């Protein structure tokens, strides 16, 4: 049995990795799709060329790798932490993306969005102060 402090550190570290991988995955997908441009209609030829363009993009592949690693990290953390602990904690991604948009890309973030970021941060803090696991180990 691990000491609670070590367990909490392990859980917090994997949650941080989840947030980074999910944010990175979404960022790479967004970047990749911006490079590819809008879909030129729904014809078979247009869908085929879009498919080729998507899977030829290095950004898309970086996104796929990030999301696969995210999935593995999520599976690992769910072996010991509560689903109702992990799910809200990973919602930090919704707060990280507007923060990155504002401070890194200089995007304008609306008041409503800042309010949402603040609520997510408070909510995650609330959940983070509860025990990560409340069930008996299977």
């Amino acid at each position: 049995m691990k000491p609670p402090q070590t367990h909490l550190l392990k859980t917090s570290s994997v949650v941080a990795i989840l947030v980074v991988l999910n944010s990175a995955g979404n960022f790479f997908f967004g970047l990749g799709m911006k490079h590819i441009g809008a879909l030129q209609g729904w014809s078979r030829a247009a869908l085929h060329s879009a498919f080729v363009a998507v899977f030829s993009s290095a950004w898309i592949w970086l996104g796929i790798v990030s999301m696969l690693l995210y999935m593995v990290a999520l599976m690992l953390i769910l072996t010991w932490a509560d689903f109702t602990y992990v799910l809200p904690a990973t919602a930090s991604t919704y707060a990280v993306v507007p923060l990155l948009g504002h401070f890194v890309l200089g995007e304008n973030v609306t008041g409503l969005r800042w309010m949402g970021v603040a609520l997510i941060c408070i909510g995650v803090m609330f959940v983070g102060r509860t025990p990560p696991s409340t069930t008996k180990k299977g």
Partner: protein
Amino acid sequence: MRSAITLVVLIFAGTGGDLAMAHAMKRLGEVNSFKPSVIWHFLGRAFRERWMWIGLALMTLAFCSLLALLSWEAMSFVIPANALSYVTGAFGGKYFLGEQLTPQRWAGISLVTVGVALVCLG
């Protein structure tokens, strides 16, 4: 009507998929080492779990529902509405996985749900 039904499918299939995967992971037991060989062995065991495959099937259904919904409705409606899955997930965690939800955790989940909706609407 079509969008409302698809939204319900999206929320319940998405939550069901996450819960099924969480159930499969709980059955495998805690992973204490992050060595590549241990993770590789863990993944091999995970994909032999029936609940894992049920979870993946439900996640696929949720993903298809999301794509369909996005083709009919504005993203500014779909993504905040999908934040409701945090609430269904909390109920699923309590009644399906037997997790103990303290008032503090309920409050946190509610704040996150409203926060995600505001970020997407903003």
